[in-house]
Every structure is written in C-alpha cells, then in structure tokens.
C-alpha cells in the first residue's frame, strides 16, 4: 500500500476497493436461514469476531481508565454527601413529612410505601410495571423458538425424580403460594405489596414446575393463561389510573368516586388493593415465563 501513488490510492478508495476497516466483511448481509444449528455456529463465529475487535489494546486501555476515574470520582463524592438518616439531611423535608404524616388518612393505606408507590407516585409504578412487560416481550422474542423448528430435546437436569426435592416441594408449594397471595392482598396493611407478593407467587410456581417437570406445569399454566393474565392486569392498571388521573384535575369537572375507606380494613385504600393485585400478577407471570423460556425455549 505504501508504494502506490496518492492518486491511485484515491482512485481505489473512491471505487471502494481500499479497505481500512477490518470489520468490513461483506458477508454480514448474506441472506441467512433460520436453521437453529447453523444459527448457533454462526453466532459463535460472530461473537469471536466481536471479541477480537474488543481486545484491541486501545479499547482495553481506555475502558480501564474510564472505570478507574469514575470509581475514584464516586468514592470522592461520598465524602461530601450529607449523613444518612440524619435529622438535618435535605431529604427530611416537607415531602417526607407529608408522606409519613398524612399518608394514612389521604390514601387509606397503613403501609406508607404502598400509599407512596400506588397513589402519590402511581405514574412511576405504571412505568415500572411496563418495564417488566417490556422485559417479558424481549425475552420471548429472543429465546422463544418457533413451533416449526424441531428442537432437539437437550438433556437437562430435572428434579422430578428426586425423592427428597419432590416431597419437600409437595409440602412447601401450597404454603408459598398462599403466603404470596397473603402478601399481595395485605400490601396496603402490612409490609409487602405487588412486587414482593408477585415474586413470592412466581417463585412458588417455578418450584412447582421444577419438581413436577416443566411439561406438566405447562399443561396447567398454558401460554394462553399467562398472556390473558398479563394483558388483563396491565389493561386494568392503565384504565384504572387513567380514571384517577382524569378525575384528579379539576378542570375536567368529574370527581373521583374512589374513597380511601377505613385504614386497616382489608377493603380499603381505594385503588391500592386492586393495583397491588394487578402488579403482583404481572410480576408473577414475568418470573414464571422467564424461567420457562430460559429452561425450555418456549412457554407451552
């Protein structure tokens, strides 16, 4: 390359025959089939290629420098921060006082956290539950194998023949599920709520699937059920909160019919109880479908 004249180099560049960029492999846009085995081989190759690009010295050097500087800055910052849980911290302001002082009467929830996330700041929680939904969809689109492909059943480790695990799970699963439902329904009265109750519930179903075999679990909890539950709870959340946002602004001229009720009762706290249940169901479905898709590559 060095011996050539500048003008001929320029011509070569202009016609696209001169390559500076190693990454320019023209085969990346070849039409590719969706055969699973071939795909795996290709994926390994592509990852190796990408690794090669990343192990160049400059890349490594700058990434280490970036991380070290960032860590040093963050450690230095801690020095200047206000003391944690001190009375004089800026976070102990009127917002905090309002949440703790009036939360019980305004929202009807004895559990202040539930009142905060599902009433005062319900819009954030709406976003959070959609983060879960987005994650479920992302995992499904990435890992779910189509029915047409004949997937080789990979030998995987199951507990379904293990006498100790099976027996214990038989005893423990109903208790876990009942506990999950309890946490879900008492979210506004005691510590807990949608996210924690939902994950307990999801863990219960995952244990069940592990012990009795995923095939059997998939017959009981079909993909259709998961889909219907997810769709219903998220739509309910959207609609319920739309009503509350709409009535929350006086210029619309409608007043909300939802009242906080008597704090401490099981049916109290306005929308908090149904929203807790909706969030819990979404969390439960997300966890369970993550497990099934990672383990089997499909939900059914």
């Amino acid at each position: 390359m060095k011996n050539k004249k500048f003008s001929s180099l320029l011509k070569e560049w202009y016609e696209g025959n001169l390559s500076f960029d190693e990454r320019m492999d023209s085969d990346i846009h070849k039409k590719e089939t969706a055969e699973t085995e071939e795909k795996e081989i290709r994926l390994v190759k592509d990852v190796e290629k990408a690794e090669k690009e990343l192990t160049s010295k400059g890349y490594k050097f700058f990434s280490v420098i970036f991380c070290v500087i960032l860590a040093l800055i963050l450690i230095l910052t801690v020095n200047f921060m206000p003391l944690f849980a001190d009375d004089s911290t800026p976070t102990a302001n009127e917002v905090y006082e309002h949440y703790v002082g009036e939360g019980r009467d305004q929202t009807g929830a004895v559990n202040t956290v539930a009142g905060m996330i599902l009433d005062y700041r319900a819009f954030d929680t709406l976003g959070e539950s959609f983060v879960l939904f987005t994650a479920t969809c992302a995992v499904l689109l990435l890992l779910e194998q189509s029915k047409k492909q004949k997937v080789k059943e990979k030998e995987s480790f199951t507990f379904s023949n293990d006498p100790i695990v099976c027996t214990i799970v038989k005893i423990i699963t109903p208790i876990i599920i009942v506990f999950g439902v309890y946490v879900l329904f008492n979210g506004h009265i005691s510590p807990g709520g949608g996210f924690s109750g939902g994950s307990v519930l999801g863990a219960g179903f995952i244990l069940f699937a592990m012990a009795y075999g995923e095939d059997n679990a998939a017959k009981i909890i079909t993909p259709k059920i998961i889909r219907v539950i997810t769709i219903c709870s998220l739509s309910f959340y959207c609609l319920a909160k739309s009503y509350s946002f709409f009535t929350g602004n006086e210029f619309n001229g409608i007043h909300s019919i939802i009242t906080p009720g008597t704090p401490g009762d099981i049916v109290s706290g306005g929308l908090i109880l149904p929203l807790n249940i909706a969030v819990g169901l979404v969390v439960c479905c997300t966890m369970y479908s993550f497990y099934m898709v990672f383990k089997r590559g499909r939900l059914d």
Partner: protein
Amino acid sequence: MDFIMNLPFATIVLSLFCAVICFAFKDKKARFVSYFLLIASGIMSASVIFYNLSSESGYFVYRMGHYDAPIGNEISAGLLEPSFLLLFEVVMLLSLMGGSHRIMRDVEEEKQKYFAIMVNLTHASLAALCYTNDIFTGYVFIEVCTIASCSLLMLSKRTRALVAATRYMIFSLIGSSLVLVGIILLYSITGHLLFPQLYEAIGTLWSTGEYTFPLTIALGLIVSGLAIKSGMFPFHFWMPDTYGTATPSASGILSGVVSKGYIFLLLKIIFRVIGYEVFLDSKIHYLLFLFGICGMIVGSVSAIKTNNINFMIAYSSAAQIGYIYMGLGLGTKAAIVAALFQIVAHSLTKPMLFLSVSGLSDTVDGKQDFATLRSSAHNNIVAAVSYSAGALSMVGIPIFAGFIPKLLFSISAFGHGIKTYLMLIALAISTILNVLYFLRTLINIYSPAKVESARKTIRFKNVPTFGVIVLLMSALNILAGLRSQPIVSLFEKGLELFINIR
C-alpha cells in the same frame, strides 16, 4: 378547550395500552395498531401545539393523580415538548411504513408482532420523556426505551445483529446507570424529584455554595449518561454495527428518534432542572462543546475509511450528533435553536437514508459494499432519488433541511473569542469531509458498472409504499429546508418558555 390539556397524558397511556393489545395478536396485523397509534398521537400532539400557541401562557402543568407537586407526579407541556413528539411520531410512522416490506423479510413471521409492541413501547417512552416533569419518571421511561430499542435491533434474523444489539445494550446501560447514580446523588442533596422544586433547590445550593462538589458530580453524571445513550463521541462505537445489521426501519427509528429523545430529555433537564445560569456556571458545557467538535471530525473520518454504505451512514450519524452537542456546548440561545433544528434535520434525513440504502442494496442481493453497489441507481430509481436528496441534505446544500442548522450554527458562532474560530473551523472541515464521503457514494451509484454482475431491477410498482414513503420524506426534507422560518420562530418561543416559565 381545556380538554386538550388531557392529551399529553392520553398519548402516553394510549401507547402503553396499544402495546398491551398488540401482545394479544397472533399475526403481523399488529403493525396496523402501531400505525393507528402513531397517527392518533400525531393528531393529539398537533392539537397540543395549537392549544399552547393560542393560550396566554403557552405552557401548562398536568397533575398525575390527586396531589399537587411535590407530593404527587406531574407532566408538563410547553411548545417544544409537543413539537418534538410530533416530529418523532411522523418519523417513526414513515420509517415503519417505508420499511414494512423489509420487516416482513428480515423478521421471522411469528415475531413480527413483537416489532409492533416494541414500536408502541418506544413511542410511549418517548412521549413520557418529552412530557415528564419529574426526573424519576424520566428514568423509568429511559429504562423502557432502552429495552424496547434494543429489542428492535435483536429482531433481525441475522446473528450479527444479536452481537450488535448486545454491544448497544452495554453502552446504553452504562449511560442509564450513570443517570441513575446522578439522580440518587441529586435526590440526597436536594430532597426533591420534581423539576420545579429541583430547580429551586439547585439554585439555592449553588448560590450558597453548600454541597457544590456532589452537585457538580450529579449534574455531570446525568448529562454524560444521557450523552452516552445518544451516542456522543467517544461513545459512538456501537453505531456502525447496530445500524448496519438491523432492519432499516429499526435503524431509522433508532438513529432518527430514540437518540434524539435522550437529547431532548437532556435539554429539558438542562433548562428545567439545572437552570440555564447554573449550567453555564458549572462549565459542563465546555466538555459538551469539545466532545461535540471531536465527534464531528472523528465520525466523518471513520465514515471516509469504511467501505460499507450502512456503516458510513452510521458514522455520519455520530458526526451529526456531534453538531448537536457543539450547539448545546456553546450555550447561547441562538446556538441551541440551531441544535434543535439540527435534531429536526437529522431525524428527517437519517431514516430516509437507511430506507433508500436498503432499496439500493436490494438490487444486488443485499450486499452493501461500494464496489458492488456501483451503478445500482439505475436499477432502483426511486431509492436513488431519495438517497441523493438525503446525501445532499447531510452535506448541507441549500433548499435541503441540512443546510439550515449549518447556517444557524455559523451565525451563532460569532463573538465568542476562541470558540468562534474552533466552531467555524470545525464546521468547515466537517462539511468538506461530508462532501467527500457522500458525494463519493452518489457518484459511485450513478456511474456505470465495471464488471457485469447479476442485478435485480426494482420498479416503483414492485414496492409502492416504499416508493411513496421515501419520496414523501424527501419532500418533507425540502419543505423543512425551504420554509424554515416558522419552525425556527416556534423553537425560539419554546426555548423562551423553557427558560422563563416556572
């Protein structure tokens, strides 16, 4: 007409709801839900613009729930928020429709509904990023946007796209985590999450000199996190791989809309949270200015070096984003208006370039290197025409949209000492480099082929929607270039509202 004040919140909830509905669909019909959503929200955003133009203050705050700030959540809309959302909606709709024939081919049939879901979720998060008046709500929807945009990339059948999406994910997550750490620091020293209260608290802290160091670090982390997510130099290395391997609609949506959404949130944070004076006083803008200029040059040089047309356009994205940060970094109102117009010009042009390149490379069996693409213009005339329009706009030829921001940048550059020279020289060099690589491709695709190879001729009637959409995008581009004054004055008004109204 107060009813219109409900529309920003209706846009967000409607798009979330549509995403859930698409999950119930079994086939590719789901994309019609996306079309409906984008058209409906476009109308809603337009009516919010008109409402605010005719109302006295031009700005309103909408309470999300029954409690006033700082106890409850809020969203707010001035002039810039609905205008940019409208731009994002138009660009998303056009790139979705124009690339629909490629989506059918690039994405497995059973997974096409996920494309619609992810488009709806991206739209929901962009709407929330535009309208939010609460920094934590902003973070939540940044998360949604990250996962959704990454999924759009993963949907391609190519395995290389998976690797590229992973790389994008890593960069994007670095950005989000920096933003999150910044928000946590900011909350611990101010005790607030809503924009108006944060603004007050930051102003007090800055003037009393209390917690200055953590405050600077927090602001720096938030700004740099969002900058990384939008692909500022030197964090632009994910661009060529992701834009080069994804299906053209996804590349268009990512480069034209998603990265601009983060920039818009950054702008909103700079003016509504940090405050214009504190931002200029904290000297963060010098960094943005420097990195912006470096990005302009480095992106263009990389674009010259590559032989793949999609990679070239991706690198040119890095350069164009450099322009935006240069404008933000200069810090004057005129420069920021220029940066806003640059967002418009780039969002209108990049998706069109990706679509038309896909049309060109379809004639040579999907190959993308210049040697093979030579003379492909004669086999797909519509794509070649729109590619030419896009390339000329990127270079900055008058009558195209890309000319206006360059003009506005140069005008705003004068009177800032050393920065004037830096900016003018950078603009000149970057324009020359742009000419070099864009005209090279233009001449290449029109010149006769040296070697005869198998080519497929694609006529207008083969893919009519594609043809109509790319021509429409070219027309929009020229319209924005010819009638720039109303847009500029809208942005000036909106920026005034951003700075002054609390």
